[in-house]
């Protein structure tokens, strides 16, 4: 597998406004003598001020990629075995403990997916909210309180002064997620990683939270990595998209490009499996057949071929490299889906 060509962005593609550059990242988990490669040669850039969406099924390596960026992979059993993560030109993987601590929460903030459990039940909102600022040594008691109130106001929580004294269980899910966002914003990060920020929230609250995130990142001129499996969310909030499957990027490009002309059969499958407003009501959704592959036991060749309606012999033999479709649009597939008809 190592002999195969790895997905790698050529140097010529590196732009000056790149904030985060992940190059050929490989993260493995070892357990009971078995090695599971959860992220296998993933490369992407995040530019200043843009929102990059990472899309894929459960187990496709989205969250592990995000955790790897902050080196939050529990070790053992996890380990980043290969690759390069450059944040603003600095090598994250080579940082010492103190440097990485400054990076976490300072330059890069992460928002987790479960607002119900991502707050410490015994600390008040105020104490938790001030925590990133305390650990990064910003401000004294008084200015912290004022800053907390300001942050809560920014995420549009009513009556922020008295909410500071509330405990997490006294807030609704949407409010807790807002507090988490406020915590993320506390130290003015340049990159926000939102790992499925709206799971466990109902749809109207989801929209509010995403609007809020988008609006706040824009106002603070921060970039965002939005991890989700919801293509509707992606279409609305992301400028660029990474589609991941079985720990690899299978398609990469601008949101416009990918929604207009998806080039990977997996992306096509994802698009076909969501309801659309421009199609008649009552139409059937087309699911992607089969199951996501077992990462410990990947099929030979392209990992998607057992579920792929376009699969041909070459797909069963060789792993496709990430190749350029046009300008900013890349795919990892041997088949040109615009020319070949699927065989069902």
């Amino acid at each position, binding site marked *: 597998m190592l002999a195969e060509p790895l997905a790698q962005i050529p140097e010529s593609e590196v732009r000056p406004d790149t904030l985060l550059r992940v190059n050929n990242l490989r993260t493995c988990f070892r357990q009971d003598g078995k090695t599971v490669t959860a992220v296998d040669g993933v490369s992407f850039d995040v530019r200043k001020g843009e929102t990059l969406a990472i899309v894929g099924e459960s187990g496709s390596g989205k969250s592990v990629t995000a955790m790897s960026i*902050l080196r*939050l992979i529990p070790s*053992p059993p996890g380990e980043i075995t290969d690759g390069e993560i450059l944040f603003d030109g600095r090598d994250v993987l080579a940082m010492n403990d103190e440097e990485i*601590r*400054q*990076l*976490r*929460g*300072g330059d890069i*903030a*992460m928002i*987790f997916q*479960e607002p119900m*459990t*991502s*707050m*410490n*039940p*015994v*600390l008040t909102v105020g104490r*938790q909210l001030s*925590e*990133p600022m305390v*650990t*990064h040594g910003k401000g004294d008691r008084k200015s912290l309180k004022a800053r907390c109130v300001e942050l809560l*106001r920014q995420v*549009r*929580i*009513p*009556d*922020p*002064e*008295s909410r500071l*004294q*509330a*405990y997490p*269980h*006294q807030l*609704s899910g*949407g*409010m807790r997620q807002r507090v*988490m966002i406020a*915590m*993320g914003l506390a130290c003015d990060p340049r990159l926000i990683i939102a790992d499925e920020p709206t799971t466990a929230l*109902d*749809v*109207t*609250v989801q*929209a*509010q939270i995403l*609007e*809020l995130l*988008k*609006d706040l990142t*824009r*106002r603070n001129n921060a970039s965002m990595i939005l991890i989700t499996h919801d293509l509707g969310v992606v279409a*609305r*909030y992301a400028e660029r998209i990474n589609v991941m499957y079985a720990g690899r990027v299978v398609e990469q490009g601008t949101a416009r490009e990918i929604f207009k002309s998806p080039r990977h059969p997996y992306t096509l499958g994802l698009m076909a499996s969501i309801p659309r407003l421009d199609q008649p009501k009552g139409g059937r959704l087309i699911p992607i057949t089969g199951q996501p592959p077992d990462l410990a036991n990947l099929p030979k060749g392209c990992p998607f071929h057992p579920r792929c309606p376009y699969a041909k012999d070459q797909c069963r033999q060789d792993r496709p490299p990430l190749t350029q479709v046009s300008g900013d649009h890349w795919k990892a597939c041997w088949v040109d889906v615009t020319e070949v008809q699927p065989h069902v």
Partner: protein
Amino acid sequence: MTVDQISPQQSAFSRKGAEGKDPRAPVEPGRAMADESAVPIRVPLRYRNRHVEFFYRLVTERPMGAFGALICIILLLTGLFASVIAPEGYNAIAPLDRLKPPSAEHWLGTDHLGRDVFARIVHGAQLSVIVAFAATTLSIVISVVIGLVSGYLGGRTDMTTQRLVDGWMCFPDLIILIVAVSVIGPGTWQVILILGLLFGISGSRIVRGAVLSTKENIYVHAAKSMGASTLWILWRHILPNVMPPIIVLFTTRLAAVILAESGLSFLGLGIPPPAPSWGGMLSLDGRSYMFVAPWLAIMPGVALAIAVFGINMFGDALRDLLDPRMRGGTGRYMARVNRKPMP
């Protein structure tokens, strides 16, 4: 994309359709997004002082706990003012008054040397309080340090520590006690040291178990992702969340230490006579004269039982009250919300 471009389904249902038109405009308090009912909360605290508030909750929500607390306070005060309550001291021998039943002069009777049992129990309370609190505190400190480090760091550290704890726990307690006492000799501080170490190491298992489940919580990962250091996470996130089992551990150990000290004194390994250890009184005098003067065994026994009961009740109540998840609708914040309906 700004907030005024609200998705169709949202604007259809939200009460304030184009809310927050200009995202740069400060949102005035009380103007909630659609998911919260906007209740401006401006009700003063029921009690300004959180300690008074806590006391109020103890009495109203856990009356048994308040009763236990009362017993604990009496125990503490008795220990503190033993020489005021019983100025004759615990060792005033009066051979003519030996083995007198309870009377107006000797409230709880006298023992075989004519010493007043009440005075001895009062001074015994002092001894019990000192030994129990010192040994338990020591044991909890040991348990917490071992449990936190071993549980949170995991991996090789955990493995090594836990095998050492295993090894320690393999020895029967009594053998360790006898060996330790014969090496460092009997006496109050020796008993405290030995009991603290003994209970501390076995108690670390309970703390470690609690830490293991707590450290997997997302807020711990979140804190780490915010750049918190290991010490900070241990102190701010793990420790407060493992407090409930630690409090229970503390109170059960407090009672257990009182009993263990009695046991040691019974065997002559504890605090040597004539110090009025309750356990010593129960076994030495109590056992010998059980049929002639039953109060000699009953009185210290009752004192022990009451003390242990009070400590346990208070401990349970503490655990419940300190856990914000069990505050239900009566916490400080909710009290303010519920107190006064808004116009």
